[in-house]
Structures are given as C-alpha cells and as structure tokens.
C-alpha cells in the first residue's frame, strides 16, 4: 500500500494538471469577466458545501471602496475535493483574501479563482489558462 500512496502523490500533481479544465467549462464564459478581481481582508459570511456548486459569501470592500457582500461559486463537491476543499474548509467570521471572476452585469456574484487564509494556506479553483483534457462529447 505504500506503493499506492507514493504513486498517488505523483498522480495528484499530474492528474490535477491533466484535469485542468477551465472553471468556465461547465457554464461557458459569457457570464463572467475574464480577469479576476481581488478582495483583500474579506470576511466570510457563509460557506455552503453543496451541489451542483458550492458557494462562498464574503463581505468585502473592493478597489473602488464599495463594501458589499459577494457570492461566488466553485465546482461540485467532488471536483473541489480534488483541489483540497472540504465541508470544513472555512467558516463564517474568517478573514481571507480572495480572487474572483466578477459577473459582467455588475451584480456582486462571481466565480472563485483562489482564496488565501490567514495562515497563508492557498486553495484555488483551476486556472482558465491551463489546458483542457480531451473529453468525450457526451461528458462534462
């Protein structure tokens, strides 16, 4: 079983690269801006580990000085599990720095890009510039 573990370590790296589908692969890229914005010192107000997409809500002040509550989606729970997220990754009240692709219509919602916790731990969704794997037409 040690062999399994050692190989798994290598496969995680390889696999996450290989599975590096665009965060917009599921939903198309029309709803969100192509470049992420940064919300520093954001306070987590809600974290919902759910399907088809988990949600993070934060209260934050953006670069224009406007303070709003933002809602951002991530992938499904199995997808995010592969990236290190779980039901207990964060809780309301935590202060984080977060990057997200905002919606084009101005509402304070977006797609999470990456999040950095107070201890420096960084978790991220997949980067849209990473290559997509070849997939069957009937799979998503």
């Amino acid at each position, binding site marked *: 079983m040690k062999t399994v573990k050692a190989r798994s370590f290598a*496969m995680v790296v390889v*696999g996450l690269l290989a599975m590096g589908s665009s965060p917009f692969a599921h939903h198309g890229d029309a709803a969100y801006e192509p470049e992420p914005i940064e919300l520093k010192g954001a306070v987590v107000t809600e974290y919902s580990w759910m399907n*088809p997409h988990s949600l993070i809500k934060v209260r934050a002040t953006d670069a224009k000085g406007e303070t709003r509550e933002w809602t951002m989606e991530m992938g499904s729970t199995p997808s995010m599990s592969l990236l290190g997220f779980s039901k207990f990754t964060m809780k309301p009240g935590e202060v984080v720095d977060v990057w997200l692709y905002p919606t084009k219509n101005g509402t304070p*919602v977006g797609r999470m890009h990456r999040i950095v916790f107070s201890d420096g731990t960084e978790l991220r969704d997949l980067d849209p510039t990473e290559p997509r794997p070849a*997939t069957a037409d009937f799979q998503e």
Partner: protein
Amino acid sequence: MRKMLMSAGVSLVAIFACSGVVVAQVADDGIGLGRTPAEQEDPEKWKYDPDMERDPWKYYATDVPPGFPDGDGGPAPVRSLTGTWHGPRASPGVPDGRRGDRPQLTALAEQIRSERKTIRDAGPGGTNDPYGRYCDPFGYPRNMYQQNRAMQVAEMPDRIVFLLQHGYWWREVWLDGRELPTNVGVRGGVDPTFNGYSVGHWEDDDTLVIETVGVRDDKWLSGDGLPHSMNARFTERWNRIDRNTMVMEIWVDDPTMYTERFSMGQSYFRWVPNQQLNEYVCVPSEVQKYLSEQADLAGSTEGMESQSLRTLPFEERGQ
C-alpha cells in the same frame, strides 16, 4: 522515486496524448490467457487490510491501483465487474476514452434540439436543462456518462446491479435469459422509466453486452440536449480489460431521432484501491439556492433568454 517519476511521466503521456492506446495495448497483449483458478478467486482481494495507511471510510479519488500505469493488476477475473470503480473525470488515474460519433439528426430531433438551451450555450441562468435547473435525474444513458465519477457494481445470480455514486442511483440488468419487453408505453403494458429495462449476457469471459429499451423520452440523451424517443434501443458493452481496468461504450439505435446508429463514446473505469466511495448528491433545494443566490443573478449568456426557476412550466422541462 525514479519509478514514481517514471509513472508520472508515462501518465502524462497517457492522459494527454494517447490514453486509449496505452490501454488498448494492454488488451492486445492477450490479457485473459493463462488465468488460474487461484487468480480468479483471489480471496485476499476482499480482505480488509489494517496496514493500508488509508482511512477505510474515506474515498481517495486520486488513489490508483498498484502498478498503474505500467501494470494491470493481473488478469481479469472471469465474467465479473464486481467492485468499486473510479469513473471518468473522478481521478487522474482514469484515462479518457474515445469520443462518441457525431449523430445525424432527423428533422424531429433537430426541432427538439433547437428548443433545448444547454448550460454550455446559455449558461446556468439561461439553460432549460432539467438537471441544471432542478437536479432532475439524468436517466439512462446520460447517467452512465455525465457525472458518473465513481460507481460500484454488484452481481447476483440472476442480475448485475450498477450503483452510481452520483445521486445514489442504481440500475439493474437481468442476466436470467428473459426477453426485453415489447409492450412499453401501451395500454396494459409497462411504463417507460428513467433507466428503462435492461437485459445482458456475457459475450465472452471479459465482455458483458447489455440491451436496454423503454427509457423515458423526456430525458436528455446528453448535456448537449440531444433527444431520444421512447422506442430507442441502446446497446452497451463492458469490457474487463484486466483486474484494474474496464471500459464501457453505448450505442444508440433510434430511427425516430437519428438517421443511423451511433456510439456515445467510451468511458474507462479504474479499480478503487480501498473500495470506499464518498457521497455525491445533487440536492433540489441546494440547486434552488445556487440558482437564486448565484446563477440567476449572474445571468444567462448574452442573447439567450433567462429562465426563471419558478415559472418554467413543468410540461416544458426536457421537451
């Protein structure tokens, strides 16, 4: 370490470039020959190993079978798919299979397809995919392809049961020699269902062939919004390549919707070392929360009409 890196390198090649070829080569080497009764039975395979360095209750999506990718775990057991399997997109240890054919639609299918707004085209705010907006069950055969990240297979003397991780759906395939129903959707007959009616037989020691009819025709064939009629017949082949690998392919025969039979493509499945799965359920109340607090606010793709969770008439779902 060197071996580990070699495995990783080979994996890159396998996953990015020619995964299907790698597995195909294994199959072409004559797997299945020389199996001994001891290898077939392998009672230790099911024994709990307290030294596995793995939580026996936790699903490790990135674990792959010992020997991967340069090993196959040994010969496949005869006429058996039993066990817990990683599916497509669940794990980097599962290669992508050959893509499906591009089907030729009839005029009726074109009309139905044109009324369907896929998530890919319309975004979550604009789609009318009944799964995307309601977590409605996929139904067969979409449930064997989309989100089928992991599953278990159990066999009984007269049937084989596929236990899908996504939504805890299961489907049974009868191996007792019965004929498929010919009275689906007629008065006094049997009703079409999400999974339809399936019978199977072992074509050889490694290949299970399943025929399915009677699937509800309001279900989408795929996330692409392709339709099928109630008279569609599906042929499904499972090939157990070796102990750790199997591959599935489904063909659609539906003259009402398609001018010729076509394949939906291959999906590979890999053995889960500790045999434990996790939970993956699309919950209707959660999808409502997602739509009302995120997706509908984000809006649909430009030029596509937005859907409303509460005003989409029931009879329009999936039509």
